[in-house]
């Protein structure tokens, strides 16, 4: 009886210990960085193909945008709505995106990059060029893919940017 008790205790403990989803095999930093780059590629493709839903899908549930000259946009659904508003009025054309660094520590990491392109107002075909730099905090999902927790950016030049326009003052 006593032996059964201890066997049961061990089994319960083993079950508790293993009840969480099995973690994928650890990957090297290089493999994690490749996975992060793959996430960014998918982010751009999904934004192109699925619009605001595709854009927001790559954020953590409690993730956030930290855009210039606006309050933070916190939560995946608010991000989707923000992008919906953005895409109703504007088209984003990225001309160039350059990676500066990607660092990983356990299940968290960050990415820094910069890029140029233009925002095009749909209603009047006005274009505003941008030259921006970005810093994102990333986290690994249970399935070992990566998602964006925070996405922040700033203009790299002194010229007035989209964030100084009426879209920003009226749209948000």
């Amino acid at each position, binding site marked *: 009886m006593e032996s059964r008790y201890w066997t049961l205790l061990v089994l319960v*403990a083993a079950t508790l210990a293993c009840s969480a989803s099995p973690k994928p095999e650890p990957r090297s930093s290089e493999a994690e960085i490749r996975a992060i780059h793959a996430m960014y590629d998918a982010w751009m493709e999904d934004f192109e193909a699925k619009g605001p839903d595709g854009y927001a899908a790559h954020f953590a549930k409690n993730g956030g945008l930290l855009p*210039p000259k606006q309050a933070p946009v916190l939560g995946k659904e608010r991000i989707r709505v923000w992008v919906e508003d953005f895409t109703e009025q504007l088209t984003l054309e990225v001309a160039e995106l350059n990676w500066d660094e990607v660092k990983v520590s356990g*299940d968290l990491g960050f990415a820094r990059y910069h890029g140029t392109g233009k925002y095009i107002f749909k209603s009047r075909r006005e274009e505003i060029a941008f030259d921006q730099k970005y810093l994102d905090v990333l986290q690994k999902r249970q399935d070992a893919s990566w998602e964006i927790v925070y996405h922040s950016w700033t203009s790299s*030049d002194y010229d007035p940017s989209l964030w100084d326009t009426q879209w920003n003052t009226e749209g948000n």
Partner: protein
Amino acid sequence: MVPMNKSVAVLAVVTLVSAGCGTACSRGARRDAAADLAAIDALRQEHVAAVNAGDLEAMLATMTDDVVYLPPGQPAVLGTEALRSAVQPYYEQFEIHLSMNAEETVVAGDWAFEWGWASSSMRPLPDGDTVHVEAKYLYVYERQPDGSWKIARDIFNENTPPGVPAS
């Protein structure tokens, strides 16, 4: 033999539970995480105090040698020397008052991530009109070889669109 079996069983239970929890559940990890958060909090306060004292060198001492500073309206500033050149005019020409409130800080090994709110006032010296800015920031902290923390990446931007006064 029974006591021995009990000991083995208890050891097995402890081992399995420990394995299931991983380091995040251990008391040591929690204590270290609390210590890291306290150290980061102290570093942020040190950074703010240095800015408010107009002490450029003390401010630079809170940042890594290879710091990347990503302010609005200019390209990335890479490293201590470039940062000193970039911000020195502000320290010489303005009286600055900065306050910062962290919204979320997460430690991951030798890196930590934080976003929060920053409020700054800049008064041109000797007697100009004060400009007030409300902003948000995202910091990446890096653990140093001696175990201390420093600011390694710094991006911030304003919270309000043009024409809307900061509250």
